[in-house]
């Protein structure tokens, strides 16, 4: 079952198209990374999916509810961490959480229990009665995440959940996100931290007004870079590049200082032939390893492609 489904979801502000023809199908229990540059329309998309603003056209269902006709049910079934924590500074951590828990329909007892649970989980229990105005950025962020989870929503939207957190707190938040997935929740993660997206996400959507690509991180890498090997040589790599390019099983080669990056159809089968060809040409090979591009490399490549296509059209 899909937790989030959109079909040709579009939002236009006067003449500006913020989101165009977005098609998404995110299975329940998935961590979905929604990546894109600033101003790409990510916030508008999240707001539509949380039934905060209406689409100009297209449809979307979240947790089984239509965002337009069942807006209240969508809001009850989703938790959201907004770009800014948006907490009440004069209220204590406990008061902030219990207020929102009650607003989400929990009884006073349930609200107190859930608030206590999340305050302990995020190590804020000792500061529960302190006004939030005196909290650090990291503490505020953790409290805002706790607020998004209070009512046990099946779908959670997190906008930069680890922004401003120290490494230990960021790790704790990532662990919580993984725990949420293990509990069957669907996480819609908007982030610029690509290493974090790589670590957490089952599915990645690269977005710039339109959805540029939607796949697993591994498939995105394979699609863009195929299967590549990195050959580290004792001497300069550039003179050997033309030779390697002529090999029938090599689709692409690039050279930088002492490194050759070679894209092959099947490394297991072709690596021995590649090594033999290089040695025969007099190359001193230090070592050879599979090349796994970072998600950042994949992302930048995809965005660059989209910019080029948009520029051409």
């Amino acid at each position: 079952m899909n937790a989030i489904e959109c079909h040709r979801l579009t939002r236009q502000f006067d003449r500006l198209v913020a989101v165009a023809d977005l098609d998404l199908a995110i299975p329940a229990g998935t961590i979905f990374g929604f990546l894109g540059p600033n101003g790409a329309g990510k916030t508008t998309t999240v707001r539509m999916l949380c039934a905060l603003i209406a689409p100009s056209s297209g449809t979307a269902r979240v947790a089984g509810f239509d965002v337009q006709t069942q807006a209240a049910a969508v809001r009850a079934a989703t938790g959201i961490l907004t770009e800014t924590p948006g907490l009440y500074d004069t209220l204590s951590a406990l008061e902030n959480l219990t207020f929102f828990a009650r607003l989400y329909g929990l009884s006073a007892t349930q609200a107190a229990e859930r608030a206590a649970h999340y305050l302990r989980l995020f190590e804020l229990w000792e500061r529960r009665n302190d006004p939030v105005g005196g909290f650090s950025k990291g503490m505020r962020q953790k409290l805002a995440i706790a607020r998004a989870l209070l009512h046990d929503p099946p779908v959670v939207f997190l906008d930069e959940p680890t922004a401003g957190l120290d490494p230990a707190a960021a790790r704790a938040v990532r662990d919580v996100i993984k725990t949420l997935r293990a509990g069957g929740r669907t996480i819609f993660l908007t982030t610029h931290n690509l290493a974090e997206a790589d670590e957490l996400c089952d599915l990645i959507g690269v977005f710039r007004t339109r959805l540029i690509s939607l796949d697993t991180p591994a498939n995105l890498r394979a699609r863009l870079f195929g299967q590549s090997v990195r050959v580290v040589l004792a001497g300069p790599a550039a003179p050997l590049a033309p030779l390697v390019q002529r090999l029938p099983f090599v689709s692409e080669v690039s050279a930088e200082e002492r490194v050759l990056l070679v894209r092959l159809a099947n490394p297991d089968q072709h690596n021995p032939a590649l090594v033999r060809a290089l040695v025969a040409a007099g190359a001193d090979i230090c070592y050879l390893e599979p090349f796994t591009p970072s998600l950042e490399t994949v992302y930048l490549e995809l965005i660059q492609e989209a910019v080029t296509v948009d520029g051409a059209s």
Partner: protein
Amino acid sequence: MFHWERITVLIGKEWLELRRSRGLLLSTFSPPLILPLFALGLIFAMGLVSDPDTAEIPAAAIDPALADLGLEALAQVIFGRQFSTLFLLLPMVIPNVLASYSIVGEKNRRTLEPLLAAPISTGDLLLGKVLAAILPGIALTWLCGLIFAAGLGFVAVDPVVPGLVLHPGWMVILLLTSPILALISVALTVMVSARVNDPRSAQQIAGVLIVPVMLLFFGQMLGLFVLNPAVALLFSLVLALVAVGLLWLATQVFQREKILTRWR
């Protein structure tokens, strides 16, 4: 259909925030309490002066009930009636201040989006904000009116003075018109809140709000009318129509989508 449980939760949060904002609390609620004491002091002082010109004031001339009063008592009644209309400033100013901090304050602190993401309808949200702002204003107005009414017996030079100052028209004004004015005040504040980023800017609307009170004040003083129950009810009815119109406009401004995409 309103969800009162959520509305009361919201009102509770609003009042908790207010209680924690000591500066706002003191600066908003202390000065009004001085008003009845100040009025009583002046009425007491009026009773010490016997000025023959008092009988020439238009307000005295058009009300037959004042014909047999002594000059000191007449001065107290005329002054008391004038001053008693000023109580109507309270239900406009206090809700205006509270609503501006509540709505523009949330907008500035960027706490509105999480609130709007909750499963509370904009009608419930608006009603919660409105009630949280007007109820303290109305309560304080009535408290000040009560202090004024209770104190009048002590400063009056003639036992008939309290009855002539606290006439049925004034009762209508206090009990019926003041909540309507509070509603108008908050409705205008909501509408202005969409355009401004500073609570004090939203409070400038209070300048417009004093117009109906000044109409009453000067209308009575110039002898244009006696504020009897019929006049007070008519005045309330006109204001109620204005309130309904402004509240409808406020609900049009206070929509999730507009708050998130149009409010600046």
